[in-house]
């Protein structure tokens, strides 16, 4: 038996719905139809009262989730694409993320964002929004890179008492497969060393972990061992694991698929330079997408985002410095 990243997300929701009556899923086309990507396939049949279609109203969907959380529920909101969560932005950052601070009442909601680029999706069906939401106090932002993490981290997200923005990568939905789902897992807020190394550290998350692994495998043939840290959760950031890795390698490249201005990679570099400057043997490097909207054509799209190829260039330069 093998299970995909997408099926893991479906399975985690199924388990959460079974275990806890307070869990429900709300989103567009997620009921009978099973969702635009089928990540709620079949759940409506099992839980017709808790897998519910919403109107195309991202603001009102998140507002509703906050109200339901006030009533003790643990809603999961599915955005059809991460990109459309911008319409619900206000309710996420100003209502949900501030509720506990303002009222001492927890806000256990999970907002699922089908994120990231796939060929041909263009500027409005490809975005990575983790930076935007991580910027605001009160949010937890997760970006799993493996089937196992998609499963265990989503279960963690649902059980956390604060708003979790769950950035699931669409490119990984069907590409990634695992033999089985984990019984035990690393806590969602801890980073993981994906691959040990000596010559440099790559810090990344989500789909970019796989691009980084391809690069590392290639460089290994030339005798360079690259350590890869998968952040898993971009907020809070497990900076200890990152610094521990840099203590071994002395060099770091932070990679993100998101836009380059500010953001998760900038935050990583900033924390490394202020907290681990003397661990560094070379200036820390950073790689993101180009600073334009995300292009539609696959030829442009592949050039726009970091790839194994552009990562290799960066790493070779970093090692020489």
């Amino acid at each position, binding site marked *: 038996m093998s299970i995909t990243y997408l099926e893991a997300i479906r399975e985690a929701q199924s388990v959460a719905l079974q275990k806890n*009556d307070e869990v*429900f899923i709300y989103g567009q086309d997620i009921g009978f139809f099973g969702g635009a990507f089928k990540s709620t396939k079949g759940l409506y049949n099992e839980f017709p*009262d*808790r897998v519910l279609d*919403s*109107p195309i*109203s*991202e*603001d*009102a*969907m*998140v*507002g*509703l*989730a*906050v*109200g*339901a*959380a*006030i*009533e*003790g*529920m643990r*809603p999961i909101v599915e955005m059809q694409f991460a990109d459309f969560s911008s*319409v619900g932005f*206000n*309710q996420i950052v*100003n*209502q949900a*993320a*501030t*509720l*506990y*601070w*303002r*009222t*001492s*009442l*927890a*806000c256990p909601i999970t907002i699922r964002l089908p994120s990231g680029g796939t060929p041909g999706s263009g500027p409005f069906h490809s975005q990575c929004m983790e930076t935007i939401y991580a910027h605001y*106090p*009160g949010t*937890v932002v997760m970006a799993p890179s493996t089937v196992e993490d998609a499963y265990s981290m989503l279960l963690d997200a649902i059980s*956390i*008492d*604060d708003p979790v923005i769950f950035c699931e990568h669409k490119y990984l939905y069907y590409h990634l497969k695992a033999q089985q789902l984990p019984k035990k897992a690393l*806590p969602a*807020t801890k980073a993981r060393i994906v691959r040990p190394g000596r010559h440099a550290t790559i810090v990344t998350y989500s789909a970019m972990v796989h691009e980084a692994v391809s690069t590392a495998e290639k460089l290994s043939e030339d005798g360079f061992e690259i350590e890869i840290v998968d952040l898993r959760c971009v907020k*809070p950031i497990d900076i200890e694991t990152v610094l521990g890795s840099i203590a071994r390698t002395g060099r770091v490249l932070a990679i993100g698929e998101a836009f380059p201005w500010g953001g998760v990679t900038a935050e990583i570099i900033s924390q490394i330079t202020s907290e681990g400057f003397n661990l560094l043997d070379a200036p820390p490097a950073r790689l993101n997408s180009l600073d334009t909207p995300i292009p539609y054509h696959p030829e442009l799209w592949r050039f726009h985002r970091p790839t194994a190829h552009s990562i290799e260039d960066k790493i070779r330069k970093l090692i020489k410095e």
Partner: protein
Amino acid sequence: MASGADHEDNLKNDSSEMVLDAFRWMVLARTFEDKISSIYKAGKIVGGVYVGKGQEAFSSALAVNLVKGKDIYSPLIRDMAGRSAFGEPLVDAARTYMGSSKGPTQGRDGNVHRGNPREGMPAMISHLGAMISVVNGILFARRMKGTLDDAVGATTIGDGGTSTGAFHEALNLAAVENLPLIVSVANNQFAYSTPNSKQFACDNITDKAVGYGITGVEVDGTDLVDCVNTFKLCVEKARAGDGPQLVVGNLLRLSGHGEHDDAPYISEDLRKSKLGEDCLSKAHNRILDEGWANQGDIDDIFKESDDEVKSAIHTAESEKVPDPYSHNWSAYSSSILNE
């Protein structure tokens, strides 16, 4: 469907009792906000002060029709009267204005941004329109859990707030889900300085209800009796499963947008029109005319309000302001995230 003792009680009450009840909260709100305004003008309140002068009848009339402990009431900036009528302790209002660490927001937010969601009163965020869908969510969740019974959720907004996308999304959603939601719109003709002519092009805000497929009614927002009876009907309809109710009260705010604003954009003609009548003195006269209370009773209400306001403000003033060094600076409720 309508059931339960509270509802029976409500129906038995004739509106004169409710009117008198609402009148008491109006007097308390006016007394309190006059006092807060003067403290603000003396420079002793940090941040803005926004009052509901002229809107107390419309505000309290909704809240006296709600049952605390069962219904939801999500007030906005001009709802001092409604908040008190719904059961908010006056001292919590005073604490929030005076920045007491014992207030419901512990100094983390001020003035009108207070609430107690555990007790059915969500704390507003500033973004207009954003609270409606939160009330939707509470009602939606209760229905899912089977605990909704015949409870309703009420929330308030101004004319300007009806132009937001959030207002539209939330009303549309409430209509689709047939939620027992009451949205009261205090149509005071201006949003800050912007007249309604720049806010919407339909003749009346109730026209918007048509588009959502819900009930919309208009009421003279300066007339307490009208307001109480209109809300009574709408609350009953929502309880009975008739879906969202949009209630528009036509009135004028008898203050600036905030206490920093002398509202030069409101013309003298408009101030002197029927919209500009003071709901408080109108209610006072009506109560005397109908013989529901005598002048002595009303004097007592003013006197009691005065005492209550003085005591609440005194308490709040004598309490400690928040201490940044011992403050809990965490935006997360989960302890694992605070490590």
